C-alpha cells in the first residue's frame, strides 16, 4: 500500500519535471566559424553560407534562419540555389553533391537534405575525370551542369540527381569543335567556370583553366563560338545583354570579349590590368552590372600589385569615375551583389561580401558607399571574447537609454534597411528584453539584444580611455591620403589585435534597476560606471586596494598595474566610469559583485578580496586570503602554461644547439646530424609515449591558488542571531573556505558621511577543500533571496524573513545546505564522489510550468566539466534532470557558458559563435520562419507576391509538404523524351516544381 502511494508520488513528480524542464539547443548566434562558401537566391532573398565543418546556414530577413549539417565532416566548397526554387545544391570537398530544400511543416519551414550524389566516371577513369570544379545551376531549375578537373562537363537532372549521359559535354567534343590551331595538342585543363547566357538559356559558356572559353549550345550539342584567351583563367562573367563576356586572369588582368554576331571566334575588345605596371595577383572574381543611366558597376576581387599590396584582401568597385578598393581585415571567401527591382534585375543596391571573419554589406546607392549594419552574423569576436554576463528582463527605461547611446555610435552606418528580406519571421515577440554583455580582450564591453533569435548589437563601451596605453588614437583612421593608389578604404570591424592585454575584461555585473555597471579586468582594475545620456568630461580617481595586507615573502612577477590618465577624459553618452579600484598585486579579477542598493562593490583576485563603497569612494574592507606557502599565486598569469611550452622549447633548443655545434666542427658529418635528428625524434616520442598519469592525493591547504576568490555574494540575512537580519558579504575561495562578514550601513540620510563597516562573522572550511563556486542564501520558504532593488521595484515578492534562512554553498564537488545563523550542515548533494564530474558553472533559474502559468520552481542550473547540464532543485538540492550538452574536450566552450534567469544559456561553439540552449520547457527562443517559392516562373517576370498575399502563399505551402516529394518522384520517373520536352520548354518544367 505504502509502496503504491510512493510510486504515485514519483510519477506525479516525473510529470511535473516534464512540464518544467526540457533541453534544446535552439539557435546559433554570431558568425559561422571558418566559412568556406557563399550562395544567394535573388528570388528567395536568402543567403547561404557553408563552412569548413560541413554546416550550411541560410539567412533571410532578420529572424529568418535555417541551419543544416552534412553528415560528412567535409568542407562545403560551393553553394548554389536552384533558380526560382527552394532547393539548393552544396558541393563538399569530398566531391559529393547534396540537395537541400526548405520544406514547410506545421507552418514553419525546415531545412532538410533530400538527396546526395557523387559523379561516377567510366570504369577505370582517373578520379580527376569526375572531380567537380565548377557547378552551374541552370535557370530552367532542373538541370545541373558540373565541370570537372578532367575538363568534362556532366549534365545532371535535379532534384533527383539523374545523370543525362547523352548530354554530357566531353573534352573531346569540345576540342573537335574548336580550330586545331588554337587547341593544339595541349590539354585545356580543368573547367574553371560555367556561365549561362542571360538572354538565351540554351547557351552556356565553358571556361577552361588554360584560358580557352567555349560557348556551347545545349540543344544542338555543339560549340557555337570560342574565345581564345591565353592567360590562366580565374573567372568569367556574361554581361546582362548577352553581348559581352568578361574574363579575369591569374596575372591580374581582365578582358572583355564581344560574343554577339555570327563569327565563331570572338574578338577581344579590351584587356586591362587595373593595378598594372608591376606584377599583380590574380583577379579571382569579376562581376559587371548595368545601371539604368550611366556606366555599369564593375566589381573585382583581388588583382593587387603582388609586391607592395599582395597581402591585402581587397574588392575593387568601379563605377564611372569612382574607384574604391575595399580593404578587408580577413580573407575574402566570396561576394555577390543585390539588385533592386521586383525581379531583381534593376540597379545594384548592395554589395555583400563574405570574408573569413565577418559579413560586410555595402550600400551602393548612398553617397560614399557606407556599410549597412548587419542584424545577424555579427562578428562577436571582433576582439576576442573574454567573459560574458546575461541580464534578463531589462526595464524599458534602461533599454531605451542603452539603445539611444548605441544609436549615437552608429552614425557612420547606412540608413538603408537590411537588404536581405527573404522568408517570414513567425517567431512570437520575445516575452521580455534580455541583454547579453560580452567583455573583450581590447577592454570593450558589448551590449547585445539577446531577447530573440537575432543577437543584435546595441551598444559598445570602451574602458581603454581611462588608462594610458601605447595605442595612438589616430591609428584607426586608416583613411587613405588623397591620390593614394590603389584607393584603399578599410571596411569591417574584425580587429583581433589588442593594444594591451591588461585591458581585457574579466568580470561584468550590471544592475538593471539602477543602471550601475561594474567591470573588472586582467590587471586588477575595477571600474564602476553609471549611465549618462550626456557626454561628460571627468577625471576618474583611482583607489588602490592592497590585497597582500602585509603578507611577506611574496614577489609579484606578473604584469604591472595600468596607468591611469590624470587629466580629465571626455566620455561619450552612455556608461561613464566614475570610480576605479586597482588591486595590488594587479592580478586578474576573479569575482565581482555589485549591490546598487547599498552602493557597494566587492571584488576578488587570487590574493584576496575587497569591499568598495562607491558612494564615498573608499575601501571598506580588504582581506588577504593567501596561503603563506603558495608561491605560485604570485607568479602572475599563465606561468603554468609557460612551463610546458618552456620544456618543449628547451628540448628543441638543446637539439638545435647540438646541431649547430656539429655543423661547426664537422661540416659534412651527416652521420652526426642524423644522430641528432634521431635523438630529437626519440625525445618527442618519449613525450608522446609517457603515459598520462594522475596523482591521487587529497587537496591540502598548501595547494596552489587556494586563496583565489571564486565567488562573492551579498545577502540580507540572519548572520549572527536569528531575530535580526543584517547586510552581509560572503566570499568563497578555491581552497574551500567561506568567509562571511557582517556589514553595517549608516542610515540613508547619513550614507554620504558615516563609514560603512564590515566585521568578520564566520568562516567555514569545507573539509573536502574543493573550490567554492557559488554561495546562495535561501529565505524561509526556501527560495533564493531576490536581487537588490528587485523588491523595491515591485518585481519580486519580498523574501520571507520570519522563517529561518539557510545557506547553500556550492563547491565544485558538492552542494551543501547549512542552517543560519548557527552554521550546521542540513542537506547535501554529492556530485564528484558519485560520478566524477565537477561543477564548472552554476546559476539560479526560475522554471515555469508549461501546463499552468502560475506554477514554477526555482532551481540551480549547473554545467559540469564533463559538459553535462544538470538541474538541481531548491531548497532540497536533489538532482532533477541531466542532459549532455558540450563535448568534454571543449574546455573553452564549457568555460564560456553563461546561464539566464529563466533556464536558458549560451556557450561559445567557436571563437565567433554562441550556441543558445534552453533547459526550461516553457522558455524557449528558437527561430520559426517560413520561406515559400514565389509564384513566378522562370520565363515570365511576374512581380513577387505582395506581402498581403502571404496568407494565400501559406496555404499553398502547407499543403505542399507531400507534394514536393511526389514531384521529385515524378521527375525521377519522367522518361528521357519527356525530359527533353521539358528541357526545350523550360516553362513546363518550372511549373511542375513551383506549384
Amino acid at each position, binding site marked *: 500500500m505504502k509502496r503504491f502511494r510512493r510510486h504515485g508520488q514519483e510519477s506525479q513528480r516525473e510529470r511535473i519535471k516534464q512540464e518544467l524542464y526540457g533541453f534544446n539547443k535552439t539557435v546559433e548566434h554570431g558568425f559561422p566559424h571558418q566559412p568556406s562558401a557563399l550562395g544567394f537566391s535573388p528570388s528567395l532573398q536568402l543567403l547561404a553560407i557553408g563552412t569548413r565543418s560541413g554546416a550550411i546556414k541560410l539567412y533571410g530577413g532578420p529572424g529568418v534562419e535555417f541551419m543544416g549539417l552534412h553528415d560528412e565532416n567535409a568542407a562545403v566548397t560551393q553553394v548554389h540555389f536552384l533558380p526560382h526554387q527552394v532547393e539548393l545544391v552544396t558541393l563538399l570537398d569530398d566531391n559529393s553533391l547534396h540537395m537541400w530544400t526548405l520544406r514547410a511543416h506545421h507552418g514553419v519551414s525546415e531545412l532538410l537534405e533530400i538527396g546526395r550524389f557523387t559523379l561516377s566516371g567510366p570504369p577505370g577513369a582517373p578520379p580527376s575525370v569526375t572531380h567537380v570544379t565548377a557547378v552551374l545551376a541552370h535557370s530552367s531549375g532542373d538541370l545541373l551542369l558540373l565541370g570537372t578537373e578532367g575538363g568534362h562537363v556532366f549534365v545532371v537532372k535535379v532534384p533527383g540527381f539523374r545523370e543525362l549521359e547523352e548530354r554530357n559535354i566531353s573534352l573531346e567534343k569540345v576540342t573537335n569543335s574548336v580550330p586545331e590551331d588554337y587547341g593544339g595538342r595541349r590539354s585545356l585543363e580543368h573547367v574553371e567556370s560555367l556561365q549561362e547566357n542571360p538572354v538565351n538559356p540554351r547557351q552556356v559558356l565553358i571556361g577552361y583553366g588554360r584560358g580557352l572559353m567555349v560557348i556551347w549550345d545545349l540543344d544542338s550539342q555543339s560549340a557555337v563560338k570560342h574565345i581564345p584567351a591565353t592567360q590562366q583563367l580565374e573567372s568569367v562573367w556574361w554581361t546582362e545583354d548577352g553581348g559581352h563576356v568578361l574574363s579575369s586572369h591569374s596575372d591580374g588582368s581582365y578582358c572583355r570579349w564581344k560574343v554577339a554576331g555570327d563569327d565563331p571566334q570572338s574578338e577581344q575588345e579590351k584587356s586591362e590590368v587595373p593595378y598594372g605596371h608591376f606584377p599583380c595577383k590574380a583577379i579571382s572574381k569579376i562581376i559587371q552590372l548595368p545601371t539604368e543611366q550611366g556606366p555599369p558597376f564593375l566589381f573585382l576581387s583581388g588583382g593587387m600589385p603582388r609586391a607592395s599590396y599582395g597581402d591585402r584582401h581587397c574588392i575593387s568597385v568601379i563605377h564611372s569615375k569612382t574607384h574604391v578598393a575595399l580593404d578587408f581585415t580577413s580573407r575574402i571567401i566570396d561576394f555577390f551583389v543585390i539588385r533592386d527591382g521586383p525581379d531583381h534585375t534593376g540597379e545594384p543596391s548592395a554589395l555583400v561580401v563574405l570574408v573569413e571573419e565577418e559579413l560586410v554589406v555595402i550600400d551602393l546607392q548612398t553617397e560614399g558607399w557606407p556599410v549597412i549594419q548587419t542584424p545577424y552574423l555579427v562578428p562577436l569576436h571582433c576582439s576576442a571574447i573574454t567573459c560574458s554576463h546575461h541580464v534578463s528582463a531589462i526595464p524599458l527605461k534602461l533599454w531605451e537609454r542603452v539603445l539611444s547611446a548605441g544609436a549615437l555610435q552608429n552614425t557612420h552606418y547606412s540608413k538603408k534597411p537590411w537588404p536581405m528580406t527573404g522568408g517570414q519571421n513567425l517567431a512570437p515577440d520575445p516575452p521580455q528584453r534580455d541583454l547579453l554583455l560580452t567583455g573583450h580582450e581590447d577592454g570593450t564591453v558589448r551590449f547585445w539584444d539577446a531577447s530573440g533569435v537575432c543577437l543584435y548589437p546595441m551598444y559598445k563601451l570602451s574602458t581603454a580611455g581611462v588608462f594610458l596605453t601605447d595605442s595612438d588614437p589616430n591609428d584607426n583612421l586608416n583613411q587613405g591620403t588623397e591620390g593614394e593608389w590603389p584607393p584603399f578604404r578599410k571596411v569591417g570591424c574584425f580587429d583581433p589585435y589588442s593594444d594591451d592585454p591588461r585591458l581585457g575584461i574579466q568580470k561584468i555585473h550590471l544592475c538593471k534597476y539602477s543602471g550601475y555597471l561594474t567591470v573588472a579586468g586582467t590587471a586588477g582594475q575595477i571600474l564602476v560606471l553609471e549611465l549618462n545620456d550626456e557626454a561628460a568630461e571627468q577625471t576618474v580617481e583611482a583607489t588602490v586596494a592592497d590585497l597582500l595586507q602585509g603578507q611577506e615573502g611574496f614577489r609579484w612577477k606578473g604584469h604591472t598595474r595600468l596607468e591611469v590618465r590624470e587629466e580629465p577624459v571626455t566620455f561619450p553618452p552612455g556608461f561613464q566610469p566614475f570610480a576605479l579600484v586597482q588591486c595590488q598585486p594587479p592580478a586578474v579579477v576573479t569575482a565581482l559583485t555589485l549591490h546598487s542598493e547599498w552602493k557597494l562593490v566587492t571584488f576578488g583576485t587570487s590574493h584576496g578580496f575587497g569591499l568598495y563603497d562607491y558612494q564615498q569612494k573608499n575601501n571598506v574592507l580588504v582581506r588577504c586570503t593567501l596561503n603563506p606557502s603558495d608561491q605560485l599565486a604570485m607568479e602572475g598569469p599563465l606561468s603554468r602554461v609557460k612551463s610546458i611550452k618552456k620544456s618543449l622549447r628547451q628540448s628543441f633548443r638543446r637539439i638545435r644547439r647540438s646541431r649547430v655545434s656539429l655543423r661547426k666542427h664537422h661540416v659534412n658529418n651527416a652521420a652526426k646530424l642524423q644522430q641528432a635528428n634521431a635523438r630529437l625524434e626519440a625525445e618527442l616520442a618519449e613525450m608522446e609515449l609517457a603515459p598520462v598519469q594522475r596523482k591521487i592525493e587529497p587537496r591540502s591547504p598548501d595547494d596552489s591558488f587556494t586563496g583565489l576568490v571564486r565567488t562573492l555574494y551579498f545577502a540580507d540575512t540572519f548572520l549572527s542571531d536569528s531575530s535580526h537580519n543584517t547586510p552581509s558579504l560572503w566570499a568563497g575561495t578555491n581552497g574551500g573556505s567561506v568567509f562571511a562578514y557582517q556589514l553595517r550601513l549608516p542610515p540613508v540620510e547619513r550614507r554620504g558621511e558615516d563609514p560603512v563597516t564590515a566585521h568578520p562573522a564566520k*568562516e567555514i572550511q569545507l573539509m573536502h577543500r574543493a573550490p567554492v563556486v557559488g554561495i546562495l542564501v535561501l529565505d524561509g520558504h526556501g527560495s533564493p533571496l531576490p536581487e537588490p532593488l528587485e523588491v523595491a521595484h515591485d518585481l519580486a515578492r519580498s523574501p520571507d524573513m520570519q522563517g529561518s534562512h539557510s545557506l547553500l554553498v556550492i563547491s565544485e564537488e558538492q552542494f551543501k545546505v547549512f542552517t543560519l545563523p548557527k552554521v550546521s550542515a542540513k542537506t547535501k548533494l554529492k556530485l564528484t564522489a558519485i560520478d566524477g564530474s565537477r561543477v564548472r558553472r552554476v546559476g539560479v533559474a526560475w522554471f515555469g510550468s508549461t501546463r499552468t502559468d502560475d506554477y514554477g520552481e526555482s532551481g540551480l542550473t549547473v554545467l559540469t566539466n*564533463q559538459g553535462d547540464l544538470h538541474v538541481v532543485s531548491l531548497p532540497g538540492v536533489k538532482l532533477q534532470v541531466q542532459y549532455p550538452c558540450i563535448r568534454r574536450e571543449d574546455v573553452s566552450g564549457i568555460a564560456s557558458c553563461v546561464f539566464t534567469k529563466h533556464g536558458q544559456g549560451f556557450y561559445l561553439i567557436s571563437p565567433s559563435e554562441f550556441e543558445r540552449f534552453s533547459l526550461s520547457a516553457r522558455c524557449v527562443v528558437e527561430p520559426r520562419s517560413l520561406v515559400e517559392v514565389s509564384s513566378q516562373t522562370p520565363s515570365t517576370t511576374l512581380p513577387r507576391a505582395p506581402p498581403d498575399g502571404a496568407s494565400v502563399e501559406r496555404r499553398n505551402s502547407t499543403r505542399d509538404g507531400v507534394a514536393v516529394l511526389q514531384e521529385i518522384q515524378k521527375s525521377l520517373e519522367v522518361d528521357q523524351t519527356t525530359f527533353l520536352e521539358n528541357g526545350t520548354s523550360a516553362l513546363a518544367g518550372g511549373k511542375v516544381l513551383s506549384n
Partner: protein
Amino acid sequence: MNKNHRVPSNRTLGAVEVKSKFGAEFRRFSLDRSKPGRFDEFYRLLQHMHRIPNVDLLVGYADVHGDLLPINNDDNYRKAISVADPVLRLFLQRKEEADYSAFGLDSLTRPKKTVLAAMLLRPDANRKKPLVIISLPRDFRPVSSIIDVDILPETHRRVRLYKHGQEKPLGFYIRDGSSVRVTPQGLEKVPGIFISRMVPGGLAESTGLLAVNDEVLEVNGIEVQGKSLDQVTDMMIANSHNLIVTVKPANQRNNIVRSGGGGGAASGSSGHSSDSGTSFYGYSSPGTAVATTPAHIIQNFHPEELESDEDDEDLVIEVDGEAMPIPRTSSASCTIPFIPRYVPHLDLRTTNGALASHNRSGSLGTLSTADRGLEGRSLEEEGTVITL
C-alpha cells in the same frame, strides 16, 4: 651515573623539565614547551640521553593524577609536554619486558603510590607474560583493510584506505590502459584504469594491498568503466578521506583463498596485511554484516561512521565581532579533536590576542593566520628546540 646529570640551563616558563628513568638510571634535561617537536625525535633523544641507541623502549609518564600513561605518538607526546608542571617524569622500559598492566586508563581509582611503586619496585615482576608482544592496542590505527572478501570474486580485492588527516600521502598514481574482458562475443579489449605508480613511503605502498598495474574497477562502490581518467581521479580525490577501491590485482597469486564460508585466511605478503586488517580491529565484520547485501554496494563499514566522518568535516569558526574576538569552535562536533590542545600554546595565544585588537579596529588580515594555526600544520614544521 650522576656525572651525566645536567642542570637545566633554562628555567623559564617556556621550558619543561624532564626527568627520565630507565632501569635504575635517571637523566634530566629540558624541552621548549612551545616547540616540543615530534615523538620520533623525542624517542631518539631519549635513546641518546640514556645511551641505549638500539634498545626498543616503551615510554610512559606520570600525569597530574599520578597515572602512568604511555607516550607513543605525537598526540600523547604533546599532551604530556603540555600537562607537565614543570617536571615531566618519564619511565622507560624495554619493550620485551614491558608491563602493560601498569598503564592504566582506570588508574585514577588506584592510589598513586601503587602505580609508581609497581613500576619502581617490580621491574621484572611479570615473567609469566607471553613473549609475543603486539604493542599496545592504542598504538594501532587502522590504515587499510580488505573488505567484502565474502562477496567479491576471488580475483578482485576491495581495499579501504584510512587517511585520518595524517601527514602520510595516499601516494599512488593512476593511468589509462586496456584490459581484456570476456563477453558473449568472445574476448574483447576494453579501456580501463590502472595503478601506474606507488609513491615510496606512501600509505598505498605501505599497506601492500595495492600494486602497480592493478586494474581499478570501482571507487567507493561506483564502477569506473566508461569514465575518463580525470573523472576517476576526481572521484578518488573526492572520496580520499575514506577511499575504497576495488582492484583486480595484477599479481593474482596472492589472492585470498576462501576456505568454506569463513573469513580471510591469508597467504603471501598482501594476504598478511589483510590478516592484520581484519582480525585485529573488527572494523569490518564481513561475514555477518554483508552476507545478504548486493555485491555492488559497500555495506560492511557502518554507514553512520562514514557520515559522521563527513559531517565533522567542515570547520566552522564563528567570530562574534563584539564580545569574543578569539575564534572558538561552535560545537564539539565540528572540531577536530586535537585542535583545542593547540590553543594554550603561548605564541598562538599572542597571535590571537593581536587578532582580537585587529578585528576590533576593523583591519581584517589576520584571521586566516589564526585559522591556520588552529589547524596546526604550520606549527609542526618548526624544528624542535632542545636545551641541554
